[in-house]
């Protein structure tokens, strides 16, 4: 067969449409692949910058000392680190039982007309801007019941953000528990509360832990509501009724300052945050994989 240069004109008319379609397909799929590449590239770029610019800030002082006076070099972010842990604990204590209860309410106590408002309310809250929640907690606690900026208010604002996340995930996990388990326990004479505490929740344990940890990881990165409730604190404090620092607050204050040293510390704190959240995610994957028998 004679080899011709394969120009478009050389293709018989009945084949041209097929080729055009094929070319268009290749181009479009190429564009789609590019879009995917762009998304991945964004993540890689941001993480790279965080690592490269944050690593120089990490030294022993960074983790053990409190911030030095404005303009002086050195010091660390220890109060903010401790503050983040304290806030995570406070918000966890409030949000995890409440979220689990909400999920239990919707799944186990399907009281018809009350179940949907609970789930609906949780979904709506999860869509609220975090600054709006901050305004609410400020009005309710900082101006109202507590009277000043306080760690407790910060914890409550984080808890409000966390409850819908916990509730949604736990609800999914609870629905995965086979009904036969519940029925068998009830048939053996167990009261409903025992069925829930001794059969359903233990079966769903991995999912509940995942939900709790995911919610805490998400709350650890929140800034806006904390600016209005916990305020931040350059001194180490675990007093729930006093302002408290937190990593995101520290990052923000350092980032908008004019000092290079503080900028580097902001990168460093960001690196710590990202590493902690990353480790939590990895740990969750390991737990999830172990559970699959």
């Amino acid at each position, binding site marked *: 067969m004679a080899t011709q240069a394969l120009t478009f004109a050389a293709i018989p008319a009945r084949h041209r449409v097929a080729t055009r379609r094929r070319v268009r397909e290749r181009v479009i799929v190429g564009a789609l692949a590019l879009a995917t590449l762009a998304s991945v590239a964004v993540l890689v770029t941001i993480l790279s910058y965080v690592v490269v610019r944050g690593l120089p800030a990490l030294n022993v002082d960074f983790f053990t000392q409190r911030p030095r006076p404005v303009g002086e070099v050195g010091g660390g972010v220890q109060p903010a680190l401790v503050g983040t842990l304290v806030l995570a604990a406070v918000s966890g204590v409030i949000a995890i039982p409440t979220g689990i209860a909400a999920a239990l309410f919707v799944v186990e106590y399907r009281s018809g007309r009350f179940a949907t408002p609970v789930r609906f309310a949780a979904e709506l809250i999860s869509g609220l801007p975090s600054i709006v929640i901050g305004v609410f907690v400020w009005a*309710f606690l900082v101006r109202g019941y507590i009277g000043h900026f306080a760690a407790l208010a910060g914890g409550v604002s984080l808890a409000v953000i966390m409850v819908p996340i916990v509730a949604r995930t736990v609800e999914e996990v609870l629905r995965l528990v086979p009904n036969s388990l519940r029925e068998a326990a009830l048939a053996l004479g167990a009261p409903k509360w025992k069925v829930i505490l001794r059969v359903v929740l233990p079966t769903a344990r991995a999912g509940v832990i995942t939900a709790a940890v995911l919610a805490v990881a998400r709350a650890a*990165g929140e800034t806006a509501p904390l600016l209005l409730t916990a305020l931040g604190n350059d001194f180490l404090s675990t007093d729930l009724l006093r302002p408290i620092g937190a990593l995101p607050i520290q990052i923000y204050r350092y980032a908008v300052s004019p000092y290079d040293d503080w900028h580097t510390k902001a990168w460093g704190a960001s690196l710590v945050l990202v590493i902690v959240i990353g480790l939590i995610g990895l740990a969750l994957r390991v737990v999830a994989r172990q559970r699959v028998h």
Partner: protein
Amino acid sequence: MVRNFDRTFAAGVTALAMLVPLTLAGITVLIVIDAWPSLTTFGLSYFTTTVWDPVHLVFGAAAYVYGTIVTTIVAVAIAAPVAIGSAIFLTEFAPRRLRAPVAYIIELLAYIPSIVYGLWAIFVMVPIMRGAIEPALQNTVGHLPLIGQLFSGPPVGLDLLSGGVVLAIMILPILTAVSREVLLAVPPTQREAMIGLGATRWEAVSRAVLPYARPGIIGGIVLGVGRAFGETMAVTMVVGNSSRDITGSLFIPGYTMASAIANQFVEADTQLYFSAIVEVALTLLIVALAVNTIARYLIRRTIADRPAGAVV
């Protein structure tokens, strides 16, 4: 005795669960109450004037609403094609072994705290915008008659355009995730029928799968809009926060509603000033509620209710 504890337990669970709708009600009530003075003083003019004068106590949030709308439009314009394109690629065309890992990587973007995005944006993205991208835009598209207006004025870097770009990056993971979920919910019969008729893979996707998934994808975009409206920290750090002029240019260092609240909440020294800021929060609240309800309805319709193989 056993039955008594059953009732107690149920009551306890109910009480805790009821905290959720109670909190939502509390949020709405408290914010309305605090915004009331501003609502009654300014009425509708609050949304039509850009005058924001804490000294003479005249407040108009038009600039904030404008900034929010502009940055959100920019964000969706950039993120939607990329996200939907990625979702299509990952569900229809990518090598099978790559699909789950790459999708997971994109979802990881959602776990980066917004303050970290803000930090990266203010120190890495803004200089690039100011030094390279914005002048380039001004020199090329800036000369065109209508669109050129978008890129007029000194390229500051800390402006609405940067705010929009940061928002685009932040809504990318959720847009991609929802689009993927929606596309995966399309019954394979749709695709198979098209291929059976001789379509290429892309033709099958664009003519059968995408129309089927369209309500859900639109729902995802609406969800992204809701997220963009409420995003505070990253946008506050790069959007400028100094100009209340509505000029039609993207190079204005403007405000969004969320950034206005973040900047001025702790500075409000008079009752009316404070109330005016809370009214911004109230607006955000109402818009977020409305947008999220619409979005979830659209998404649920595509995933749950469409019977397999139904003729659209």
